[in-house]
């Protein structure tokens, strides 16, 4: 659910400034500070899914600053690491700034060593130097050892940023060379004889098909060098305090009530406050009382043609339907959801949730890492489908893509669903939740048995739990709301226009009649519910909002509401998600997934209708 990235122009003549570093070391915040532009910042590894770039003046020189995905190694094993490595290799004339956590100097220097081995000129930026447990590091001594500029900064408190800018445009190439054990050097020599560089040979020796003994030797030698540097530049180490809250969040017993409490708080904040109080206020007190009557009067006064009046303020009007749905019903829900999600992201809870749910996910042929795209799916399934790239194997990526499209409602849709469930009470919520969770586990379990392939390793870093900063949450909510408005409102208007023309040409009635055996017969819903399913393909939340309006109008009884909610939750994802599925998994797989989901969603809906009646 990061911001849409600015597309990089490979032919751009401006010199690039690449920010590289491990996940969760503050690259995105440094990017924001250098460029005054916002890149999603979280206490959550893997936020930067796409490459974000912006032009900025750095110490009097124009640079295209590029925020790269977090990487732990230059011997890439994941999609993100490959992207960063390729960018580094391709941008030979770029200035590179390695951003590292000063509190985790060992890991920072392990990556520095690999940059040195790749013969890359760079500046080392040691971020988070304001934290109370930041160790005392003799920066000049470290710069002498490495032979490159080193700057200690705090992006959060804006410490030393001018110094960083000064050094960022004057990077240096280090002369440090690490000598490995004899067997490793022989293997490097063999590979170099075949035309590889020393750095590429080392990367190959750390890759999937290589010998684990040589990989172990390489790791050991690098750690020896790094530990020697640290011993010489760090006078005292301050161990990080015990992370009691973090430990409780993933405790096998206490973790469960904490998870339930988080879910309950989410339901109270998004479902009750956002979707209840706020929606009621915006829809009833603003739109129904002022906006729609005024717009109707104005349009009737200005527009001579009935056709145009209907287009704007009719039953399928751009103002009375599209804008009312987008601004009055979905926007308050989305804002509260983004606030909650921002707090969860910044607190560091999400990786702990991955640990908590790892065993459950393993039964579905996945591992805890899949929790991250699934939780991101609660924000936006389209972005989450892109983040399935963080999973190591194709099998895992396919399973998560199916589960996202099938059982994970996006933030806007979830908000509307919560609002509808809020009116029905606990039993309805349990039925909806039970069917959805059962679907996820059943389909995940079966897919893991049917699909060929292997499962990836579960190795996840747990960032320290932090108190989220209000300013960061506000910026994040604003940026994401802007993104939502830009992306959703045009599609809402397009959807309304489609409905309007279908209605004008009486095709809507034909469609409703054609779908009647399914919608009315099998699902037991009113015929106009077909509109919601048709339009749900444009945007999931739009479809749900249609059902919400029907429920508020008294057109759906509680049982019908549960059936309709379950079907719209499971039903085919929005068109954007479908297109991303085609891009990521291929046309055949995407069509197969969509076909399966359609049959499954209506099948479960019909079954639920039979059971509840």
């Amino acid at each position, binding site marked *: 659910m990061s911001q849409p990235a600015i597309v990089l122009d490979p032919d751009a003549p401006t010199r690039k400034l690449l920010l590289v570093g491990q996940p969760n070391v503050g690259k995105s915040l440094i990017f924001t500070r250098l460029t005054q532009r916002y890149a999603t910042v979280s206490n959550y590894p893997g936020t930067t899914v796409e490459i974000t770039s912006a032009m900025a003046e750095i110490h009097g020189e124009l640079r295209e600053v590029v925020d790269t995905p977090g990487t732990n190694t230059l011997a890439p*094993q994941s999609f993100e690491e490959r992207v960063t490595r390729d960018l580094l290799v391709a941008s030979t004339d770029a200035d590179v700034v390695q951003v590292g956590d000063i509190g985790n100097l060992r890991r920072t220097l392990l990556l520095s060593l690999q940059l040195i081995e790749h013969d890359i000129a760079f500046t080392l930026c040691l971020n988070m130097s304001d934290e109370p447990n930041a160790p005392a590091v003799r920066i000049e001594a470290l710069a002498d050892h490495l032979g490159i500029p080193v700057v200690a900064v705090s992006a959060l408190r804006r410490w030393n940023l001018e110094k960083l800018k000064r050094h960022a445009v004057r990077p240096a190439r280090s002369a440090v060379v690490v000598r490995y054990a004899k067997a490793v050097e022989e293997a490097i020599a063999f590979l170099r004889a075949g035309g590889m560089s020393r750095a590429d040979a080392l990367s190959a020796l750390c890759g999937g098909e290589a010998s684990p003994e040589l990989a172990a030797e390489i790791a050991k030698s690098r750690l020896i060098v790094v530990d020697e540097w640290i011993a010489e530049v760090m006078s005292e180490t301050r161990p990080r305090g015990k992370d009691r809250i973090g430990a409780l969040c993933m405790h096998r017993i206490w973790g469960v009530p904490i998870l339930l409490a988080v879910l309950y708080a989410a339901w109270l904040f998004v479902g009750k406050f956002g979707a209840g109080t706020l929606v009621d206020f915006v829809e009833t007190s603003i739109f129904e009382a002022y906006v729609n009557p005024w717009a109707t009067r104005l349009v009737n006064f200005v527009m001579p043609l009935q056709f145009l009046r209907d287009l704007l303020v009719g039953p399928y009007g751009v103002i009375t339907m599209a804008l009312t749905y987008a601004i009055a019903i979905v926007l308050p829900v989305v804002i509260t959801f983004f606030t909650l999600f921002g707090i969860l992201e910044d607190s560091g809870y999400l990786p702990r949730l991955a640990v908590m749910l790892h065993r459950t996910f393993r039964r579905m042929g996945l591992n805890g890492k899949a929790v991250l795209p699934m939780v991101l799916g609660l924000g936006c399934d389209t972005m989450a489908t892109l983040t399935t790239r963080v999973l190591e194997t194709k099998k895992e990526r396919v399973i998560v893509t199916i589960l996202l499209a099938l059982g994970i409602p996006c933030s806007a849709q979830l908000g509307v669903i919560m609002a509808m469930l809020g009116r029905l009470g606990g039993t309805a919520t349990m039925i909806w939740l039970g069917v959805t969770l059962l679907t996820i586990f059943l389909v995940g379990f079966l897919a893991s048995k049917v699909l060929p392939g292997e499962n990836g390793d579960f190795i996840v870093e747990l960032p320290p739990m932090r108190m989220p900063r209000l300013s960061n949450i506000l910026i994040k909510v604003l940026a994401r709301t802007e993104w939502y408005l830009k992306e959703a409102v045009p599609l809402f208007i397009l959807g309304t226009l489609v409905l309007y023309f279908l209605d004008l040409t009486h095709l809507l009635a034909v469609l409703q009649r054609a779908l009647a055996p399914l919608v009315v017969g099998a699902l037991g819903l009113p015929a106009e519910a077909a509109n919601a399913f048709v339009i749900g393909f444009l945007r999931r939340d739009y479809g749900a909002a249609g059902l919400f309006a029907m429920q508020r109008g008294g057109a759906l009884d509680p049982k019908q509401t549960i059936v309709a909610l379950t079907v719209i939750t499971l039903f085919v994802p929005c068109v954007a998600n479908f297109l991303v599925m085609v891009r990521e998994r291929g046309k055949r797989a995407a069509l197969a997934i969509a076909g399966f989901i359609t049959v499954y969603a209506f099948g479960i809906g019909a079954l639920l209708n039979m059971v509840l009646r």
Partner: protein
Amino acid sequence: MTYECPLCGTDFTGAECRPSCPMARGCSMVRCPRCNYEFVESGRFVDMLRRWIRRAPAASCAKGDVVPVADLPVGAAASIAHIATLSAARMSRLASYGIAAGSEVRLLARRPAIVLACGASSIAVDDDVGREIYVRVSQPTA
């Protein structure tokens, strides 16, 4: 199948039956070969429940022993002796977090996943991965 006699504590394998007993086949009673005490064989579900309630205690280790990190008691620190994996990719992935031979690690949790503190990082790994990380015990554990 191995059993532990609840009366005398003897470990034994295989349920011994009296040849004269009419229920010799298909009965769920187990008899201790040492004290002849008979007890009911517990089912899979009960075993699972018991394991969940009474976590398997960490193996006792003497100083200098090399054991999988998962066998350390929670909270214990040790240095990594070697990583017995067949995958260079897994080795490199662990190394990128600083987990390699010679590094000091502390076991923070065994459940729901193995959580290791290494330097300033906390890393959660699967049981399978944790079983491959062998550490040299620096302090004897009970």
